[in-house]
């Protein structure tokens, strides 16, 4: 996908976003972590591509609601300043079907540009160029376009980041290129870690993710999220739940995928992961699958991320301000 500026925001889109956002404008208790679930049941029929304009509207509704902003554009301006380089950390390893949707990434790129960030300062990145390509992201050939960059091209720094049981080198894209990152995981099952959502998606920023899948990723996933560059640069998570997968992940398994037709938006990755996990568990139960706990792959790393040694967010449903729009 060579991505550039697309059609500007229309008055009609703005109006829709504004109307949709009205629900979310109610004030949350300040100590709660807000998680917005935006959905559009008609967004995508099973296995069809979602329509760009509808995805834009859904995205606007989700982000405006999350920031309780007056307009989608005002919300986007809260994410990054015009002089900043913004990374979009997609999830591509499993290729099309189980990767962050190109339509969603195009929509985010468009809104960032409208918020004043030039296309050349937007970087779509993940571990490998080949993973990006398999998910439909083509490296842009022109410098004025959004860049797509695998860590295999960008390289890793030489300073070992260490926390708890984890020690890793970090992607230069994260540490040197980007000022801010929007984390873009996919709502899906993971055969080892239970689920792969906001916290797990940062494994794409380290040189040695294979070392941290033991014990269902606990405490490693939480530890990796404590690395300062990761904590400080990720400003927002937008979880792609247009198509979701409740079993057989992280590989794409169409028989266990369904159209959730939504987005999950949060700044608190723990609250987002807890919320996404519950959605997947409910779908598993509905389809007659055992719970992740029964399968010994309950994502305990989510609770670890919330503990006193990490404090990355909350997994307490009482402290999550869940907003559905």
């Amino acid at each position, binding site marked *: 996908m060579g991505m550039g500026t697309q059609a500007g925001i229309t008055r009609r889109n703005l109006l829709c976003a504004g109307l949709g956002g009205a629900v979310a404008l109610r004030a949350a208790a300040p100590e709660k972590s807000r998680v917005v679930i935006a959905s559009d049941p008609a967004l995508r029929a099973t296995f069809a591509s979602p329509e760009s304009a509808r995805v834009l509207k859904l995205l606007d509704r989700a982000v405006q609601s999350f920031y309780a902003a007056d307009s989608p554009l005002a919300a986007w301006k809260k994410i990054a300043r015009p002089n900043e380089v913004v990374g979009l950390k997609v999830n591509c390893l499993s290729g099309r079907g189980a990767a962050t949707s190109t339509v969603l990434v195009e929509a985010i790129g468009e809104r960032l540009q409208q918020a004043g960030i030039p296309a050349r300062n937007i970087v779509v990145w993940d571990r*490998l160029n080949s993973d990006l390509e398999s998910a439909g992201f083509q490296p842009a050939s022109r410098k004025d376009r959004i860049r797509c960059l695998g860590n295999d091209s*960008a390289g890793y720094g030489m300073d070992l980041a260490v926390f708890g049981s984890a*020690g890793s080198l970090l992607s230069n894209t994260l540490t040197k290129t980007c000022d801010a990152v929007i984390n873009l995981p996919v709502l899906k099952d993971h055969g080892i870690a239970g689920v792969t959502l906001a916290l797990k998606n940062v494994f794409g920023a380290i*040189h040695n993710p294979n*070392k941290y899948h033991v014990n269902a990723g606990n405490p490693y996933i939480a530890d990796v999220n404590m690395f300062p560059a990761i904590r400080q640069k990720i400003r927002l998570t937008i979880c792609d739940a247009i198509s979701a997968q409740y079993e057989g992940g992280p590989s794409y398994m169409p028989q266990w995928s369904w159209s959730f037709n939504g987005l999950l938006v949060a700044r608190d990755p723990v609250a987002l992961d807890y919320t996404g996990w519950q959605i997947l568990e409910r779908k598993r139960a509905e389809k007659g699958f055992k719970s992740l706990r029964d399968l010994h792959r309950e994502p305990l790393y989510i609770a670890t991320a919330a503990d006193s040694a990490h404090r990355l967010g909350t997994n307490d449903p009482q402290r999550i301000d869940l907003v559905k729009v």
Partner: protein
Amino acid sequence: MDRRRFVLDSLALPCLAARAAAPDARFTVEARFYEKLPYKKIKCKLCPRECVIDDRERGYCGVRENRGGTYYSLVYSRVCAAHVDPIEKKPLFHFLPGTQAFSVATAGCNVNCKFCQNWDISQVRPEQVESEYIPPRNLAALARRYNCPSIAYTYSEPVVFSEYVLDSAEAGRAAGVKSVVISGGYIQEEPLKQLCRRVDAVKIDLKAFSEKYYKEVVNGELKPVLDALVTLRKQGVWHEVVYLVVPTLNDSDAEFRGLARWVKTELGPDVPLHFSRFYPQYLLKNLPPTPIATLDRAKSICDAEGLHYVYIGNVPGHPAESTWCPKCRRAVVERAGFTVRAIHLDGGKCHFCHQPIPGIWERTSRL
């Protein structure tokens, strides 16, 4: 880059700089020890971890990848470090003393020791470190060119590049070059037996004598390593054991005594046991170097338990670097650091009292 620079200089400093990671078919062979599972998953049967791996994913070691339900090693002939080292550096003290070993590694390891001194090659993926293509027959030829009677598979973890080790050992044998494996011994029985049929000596890093340490510091398990040592004894391959003594973590009298008794019972009193000095690095920088008194204490306990060849390593000039005849108590191999000063052995026996000293002492072919 010419071959000599490659060997002597260029790979001394592994480079994690950005490089395009074009998949290179030369380095990719189908793995030998795995089973296929439904939905294009596989289960690796090389080491006790038995990773179950989805399509397009890699195992814990990072050098084996599932591609469409077939499992591949990505490090066949993909050498990221190559040096000519004294065999004493491995350390192997009862194996061709005073000779050089042509020493090679690929990226990857199946554990993650917090004290790893080679983490910049062992804890990375093959595409994250510069490598050279050295197929097995070239490796044997290089060893001969550098007057090395042996090839050492070392630095990282040869278990994870075992396909390359197996073929290189065979090529080496055909060229009159021996093979030695320097390993953590975290390997399943069948692949180990195949290695035993082709290599001449194995040094095992027994990192501690407690499961707790293996879990917390090594990210592995003790039991399979002990099983591997017993397999080596049963297969009749020459083996030596190294134990890195880390202050406060694996240095109690009880642990040293338990280790000594196990070695004596299961492997026999003649197996060389090296206590090695720890220096802080990688993820374990908060501990001091091992006091020499601790190493002396470990040796005293093992001597008292009846082990015949207990060494102290990483302490240049220590008398326990030399091999002492257990009968007449005279030095039969005198060492200072990695240098062998004198050998007083005649046909594998003590020159002074004719006590047989176990080991592989003679080259079988002239290089």
